[in-house]
């Protein structure tokens, strides 16, 4: 057990499943499945499996990566479509009208062992507009028939990818590089983190704080100062957006009476909206608050985007306010 970067941990999961399944195929866009581990050890799936199971990345054509992978999956061959954050949305309709609906539409006939691995987003300065998004998981969670997971550390990333690759339903897997900020020991052997299982990272009595992916990394950074302020926070990482493990969150709010949701997605109809709405109905009288990226595209200038992104200081502030 040793710290591993998340991209390496994820490739360990993919490598294990591709070795176990002689046909599993990965279509991907420009990030060759090669990563270096902590001891300089390299995983190179491209060299190990090669075309056709792992072709050289090929054309800029997200509709092929997702539509083609869906076709592969319909023949019973588990498929992965891996691409950068701004790209999978080009295939949104295929996920909305095909991938998510085919099982139901056909009365249960169609299995869709497909993992859509979306990579690389985050509220980074300098890219602007299309390359600094976060929170797209909410767009996919709104679609019936697709599962959506958002790991917040390398350990969960590997375990959730393993689960996703063993699932018979389509899973959209969000990898935010920022989660390497939550360094973790990652076993070399394979293991699963179950889809739909929340992680209570810290128990507390005054306040429940919830967030996924990069927002959860900021929550972790804020925990010490929150404790220092004399606030006993229960900290929960849902890890899965759909199906959302709302019971674990509601149970916690039952105890603390207060919920703070942090999200790097937008205010309107982001993940925070669903969590707050459900808790509000399940735990009448709870105090509720959220800190999210505003309903604006991400601007390029650091001054703007950093100010707009929920980070540790803003989270500490919000925790104090909500418990005041």
């Amino acid at each position: 057990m040793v710290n591993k970067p998340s991209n390496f941990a994820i490739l360990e999961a993919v490598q294990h499943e591709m070795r176990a399944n002689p046909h599993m195929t990965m279509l991907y866009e420009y990030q060759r499945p090669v990563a270096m581990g902590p001891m300089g050890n390299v995983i190179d799936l491209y060299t190990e499996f090669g075309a056709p199971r792992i072709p050289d990345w090929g054309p800029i054509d997200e509709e092929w990566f997702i539509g083609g992978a869906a076709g592969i999956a319909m023949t019973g061959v588990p498929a992965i479509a891996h691409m950068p954050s701004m790209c999978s949305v080009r295939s949104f309709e295929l996920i909305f009208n095909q991938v998510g609906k085919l099982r139901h539409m056909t009365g249960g006939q169609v299995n869709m062992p497909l993992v859509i691995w979306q990579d690389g987003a985050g509220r980074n300065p300098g890219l602007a507009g299309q390359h600094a998004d976060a929170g797209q998981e909410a767009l996919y969670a709104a679609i019936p028939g697709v599962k959506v997971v958002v790991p917040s550390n390398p350990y969960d990333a590997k375990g959730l990818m393993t689960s996703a690759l063993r699932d018979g339903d389509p899973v959209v897997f969000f990898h935010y590089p920022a989660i390497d900020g939550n360094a973790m020991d990652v076993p070399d052997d394979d293991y699963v983190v179950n889809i739909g299982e929340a992680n209570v990272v810290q128990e507390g009595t005054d306040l429940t704080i919830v967030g996924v992916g990069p927002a959860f990394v900021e929550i972790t950074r804020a925990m010490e100062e929150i404790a220092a302020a004399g606030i006993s926070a229960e900290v929960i990482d849902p890890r899965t957006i759909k199906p959302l493990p709302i019971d674990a969150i509601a149970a916690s709010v039952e105890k603390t009476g207060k919920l703070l949701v942090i999200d790097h997605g937008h205010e309107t109809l982001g993940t925070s909206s669903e969590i707050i709405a459900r808790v509000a109905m399940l735990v009448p009288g709870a105090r509720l608050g959220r800190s999210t990226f505003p309903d604006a595209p991400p601007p390029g200038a650091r001054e703007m985007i950093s100010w707009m992104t929920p980070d540790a200081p803003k989270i500490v502030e919000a925790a104090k306010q909500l418990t005041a």
Partner: protein
Amino acid sequence: MRDDTPDTAQQADAGPQDAGKSGFSRRNFLQFAGGAGLAGALMSNAGMARAGNGWTVGLEGVPDEKSRQMYELMLKSRWWEEGIKEAFLAGNDGLYGAFHISVGEEACSVGVMAALNEDDYIASNHRGHSHLIAKGGDLHKMSAEIFFRETGYNRGFGGSMHITDVSKGILGMNGIIGPQFLFAAGAAYSAKVRGTEQVAVAFGGDGSVNNGWYYSGLRNAALYGLPMIAVVENNGYQMSMPQQNTNSLQNLHDFGAGLKIAHEAVNGMDVMAVYAVAKRAVERARAGEGPTLIEAKTYRYYDHAGLAGAKPGVMGAFGLPYRSDAEVRAWIAEDPIPKLRRQLVANSVMTDDEAQAMEDEVKALVAETIEAARQAPSPKAEAGLEHVFAGMTVSPSQFMS
């Protein structure tokens, strides 16, 4: 259409070179495809169908049994759709939902499917009853699905536009225009991964060529040398829009020239002509020579959807605002089913009585499937919460909890 044949020949040769460029040498692929010997063998009997200009092709070289089966499949497709149409018009069964009739286009589906093996894949569209029947679809399960019964192919979840039978390589009809080209390319890619000889065929209409998925499916099939075939059933209309107003190409298969893939037009009203062209495409696909784009010139006798202009006991829809009855009658004069029957009888593959008997049996079977569908149970309301994900149900949020 004479000038199409050279296209094909020439482009077919371009195949392996393209495949090579994409990193799969022909040799590699043939290992997947099961050895060069096979490809050679297939090649040899392709010649058969190269008679004349290929626009109309006789039974020469087609085993009697095969041509009889093809005739029966066309009859099944024709009379199943006619039977359901009559039930809609009679109005006694309270039928509802979409129903896109393909009557008139049976030669396209049966001709292509005659060139396929059972384990080959097809990805169909909204006008796909005929594709499914030609690929061996079960008329009982199809009728039951039109009636939205629990016994239907999709257990009443899908209705006409989504009938699917994965067990027969039928990746499904689809209510959306275009994805079939990606699904077929993907299924073809899967065949390559698994090293099988399977091919995948996408069926689309003249309207389906106008969306990006058509380009993507074909372009990637060309890039990776995939065993994929796109069949464009050009029936002249995209709903009420004449094909010539939707695309600057007069002959849609010409698009293949821009991808340097094999492409040709075929007489979609002559099942043996379609069979011949499809066989060449299948041979090319199994030989690792990449995709083929086939444009079948055909016609739908009925309206786009529904039964405007249709009458009980009369084949075809007349008096529609966007086309002339003379045009409809001209295409009906080309009807592929009597055309084949005349050939079967003239070549004494069957007697006229045998042909008639076959037709009567098919009609009886259709009637039986419709009666069975009538009697079958409807799905439980609660079933709608199933099959979203495997083995779990979603919550009935329509009821405030």
